[in-house]
C-alpha cells in the first residue's frame, strides 16, 4: 500500500485528485531517472496555484518522486476516485502527462511506457497504442500547449 495515499486520504476528494495528478506527474518525470527543473516548472505551470501554495506543491512532487509504488497503482486509485464516467477528465490527465513527457523535447521509453500504462488503466484506450494516446492529448492542445 502507498503511504502517500494514506497520508492524504482524509483530504477532500478534489484535493486528493490534484495530489494524485501531482504524484503521477512526478513519477512520469522521474521515470527516465532524472527529474529536471524544466519538468518541475512545467508541472507548476499546468497546475494553477497561488504563490503560497508553491512550496506545498513542490513538497508533494518530491514525495511523489520518492514514492516507490508503481504508477499503475496510482492510476488505478485515481480512476476509482474520479469514476469511469468522467472520461473527459481522465483524458485530460493523460494529455497533461503527454505534455510533461514532451516538455524536455525527448520522450524516453520509460515515459512512453508509463503514459501507456496510465492510459490503459484509466480505460481511455483499449490497447497501449501511442497514436491513440496522442489523439487524446491533442484534444487539449490549446489548453496545454501540446505540439
Amino acid at each position, binding site marked *: 500500500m502507498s503511504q502517500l495515499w494514506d497520508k*492524504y486520504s*482524509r*483530504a*477532500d476528494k*478534489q*484535493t486528493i*485528485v*490534484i*495530489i494524485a*495528478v501531482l504524484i503521477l506527474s512526478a513519477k512520469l518525470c522521474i521515470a527516465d531517472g532524472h527529474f529536471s527543473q524544466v519538468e518541475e516548472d512545467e508541472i507548476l505551470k*499546468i*497546475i*494553477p*496555484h*497561488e504563490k503560497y*501554495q508553491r512550496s*506545498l506543491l513542490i513538497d508533494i512532487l518530491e514525495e511523489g518522486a520518492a514514492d516507490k509504488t508503481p504508477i499503475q497503482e496510482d492510476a488505478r486509485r485515481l480512476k476509482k476516485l474520479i469514476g469511469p464516467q*468522467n472520461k*473527459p*477528465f481522465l483524458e*485530460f490527465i493523460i494529455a497533461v502527462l503527454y505534455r510533461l513527457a514532451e516538455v524536455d523535447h525527448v520522450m524516453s521509453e520509460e515515459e512512453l511506457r508509463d503514459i501507456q500504462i496510465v492510459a490503459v488503466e484509466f480505460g481511455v484506450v483499449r490497447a497501449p497504442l501511442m497514436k491513440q494516446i496522442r489523439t487524446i492529448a491533442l484534444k487539449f492542445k490549446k489548453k496545454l500547449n501540446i505540439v
Partner: protein
Amino acid sequence: MVNLNNIFNKFYPKATTSPAGKKLIYMAWAIEITVAMVGFTIAYFMVQLGREETLKATSQETSSNVEYYIIGLAFFVVGLMELTKIPLATALYYAARTYWKIIFFIALIAVNFSTFETIIQGFELSYNKRLEVVNIERNKLEKLRDELKTLGTPEILENKLSQEINEIQDKINNLNSEISKIKIEENNALSQLENENATANPKKDALEKKLERELNTLNSYRDEKSKQLLALQSIKSDFTGRKRRAIREEIANIEENIKSQQKLIRNIEDKIENISGNIQSQNIPKINKIKNESTIRINEIRNQITRITNTELNPKQNEKSRLAENETSNNEKIENIQKQIDEQRKIVIDKASSNQIYRLALMIKIGPGQWFFDEEVSEDISEAELTKEDIDKAFWLWFGFLAFIISIIGTLVAFAGLHLMDERMHEIRNKPIIRKNTFFYRFSKMFVLINRYLASLITSTLKPKTIEKIVEKKVKVEVEKPVYEEKIVYQKVEVPKEVTRKEIVHVPLWTQDPDLLSKQIDPSFVEKPSKKKK
C-alpha cells in the same frame, strides 16, 4: 490538512459545473417526457372518446369509423415531437453557422408552440370537466335573469315605450316638415319661373314703357284742357267773344288729341295683354310639371307617415296602454322570478365557491382586474356575478401563462445544462467582460461622461458668481518721500597674516659613531625646500 480544492477548480473547471449541467439535462428530459406523456394521453383519450360516441350513436361498435384513430395518431405525433426538443436545443446551441441557428430556432419555436397547445388542451379538458357542475346551475340562473329582463320592471318598460313613441313622433314630425319644405320649394320654383319669363320677353318691357309714356302725354293733355277750361271761365270782358271762341277751339283740339291718345293707349294695352296671354300659355306645362312632382313627393311622404303610424306608433301606444292595465299582474310575476333568482344564486355560489377556477376568476376580478383592466367591481361581488368572459379571462391568465411556462421551461433547462457542460463557458468567463473596443464599453462610458458633465454643470451653476465692476473710490495716495541715507562703502583693507615657513636649521648633535665622524660634508649640497605646501 491539505486543501487544494481551488487548484482543482482551476485545473479542470468543467468538473465544477458539468455535474450540475448533467442534472439539468436529466431534468429537462424528465419534463419533456412528461409533456410527451400528456400528448400520448390526449391521443388515447381521443380514441376512447370517439369509440364511446360511436357506441352511443349507433349502439354498436363499428370498426370502419377510423376518424378518431386518425385524430388520436395526430396527438401521438405531437407527443413524439416533444421528445425532439432537447436534441433541437443542443443543435441550436452548438450550431456553427447563423443560418443553421435560425433554422433550429424556428424549429424550436414550432415545437414549443405545439407543447403550448398540448398543455392548453389538457388544461381545457380539466377546465370544462370542472365547470360542468357549476355551469348547469349557472345556466338556470341566466335563464331566470333573461326572463326577468324580458318582463322587466313596468316603470322601466313604460319609460322605454314612451321614449320609443317620442322617437317615432319625432320621425313623423320630420316627415311633415319635409312636406312643408316641398311646398315652399314648389312656390319658389313657380315664382322663379315667372320672373325668368318676364325677363326673357323684351318686347313686353318696351310696350310697357311706351304705355307709360303715352299715359304721361294723355295726362299732360288733360292738364292742358283743365287749364284752358279755367282760362275760359276766368275771361270776364270779351265783347266780341273772340277769346272764348279761340279757347273753345283750343279745347276742342285738345279733346281730339285726348281721344286719339286714349285710342293709342288702348291699342298698347291690348298688345301687352296679348303678349302676357301668350307667355302664360307657354308656362302652363312647366308649372304643371312642378306641381305634379311636388304632389307625388308629398303623397309618398304622407304614405310613409301613415305606414309608420300604423306599424310602429299604434302598436307601441297599444302596448303602453296594455302595460298600464297589466301592471299589477306583471309585478307579481317579477317578484316571483326575483325570488327564484335569489335561490338559484345561492346554489350557484355554493357550488362555484368549491370550484378552483371560479375562485381564481373572482380573485382576478377583484385584484388584477381592477388594477390592470380598469374594471369597476362592487364590494359584494360573488361567484354568481361572474360572466363567461371573466372566467375565460381567468383561464387564459392562469392556465395560459402556466402552459406557456411549461412549454418553454424544458428547452430553457436544456440550454442551462448545455451551457454548464460547455467548456467554452469557462474560457469566456475568464475573459474580461468589458473591452474598450466594444459597443457596451462605449455605451457605459457615455453615461459616465454625461454624469461628469452634469456634475460639473451643477457645481458651476451653484457656485457664486463673481462679477467684476469698476468702482471708483478715492484712495489716498501716499507719496513716498525719498529717504537719503549714507551709503556704506566697503573698502578692502589688507590685514597682515602670520605665515609659517619651514626652514632647516642645523643643530649639532653629539655622536661617537666613527662613520659619521669620518664623513665629510659636501659644501655644495644645499637642500632645497619643496614647493608643495601641506
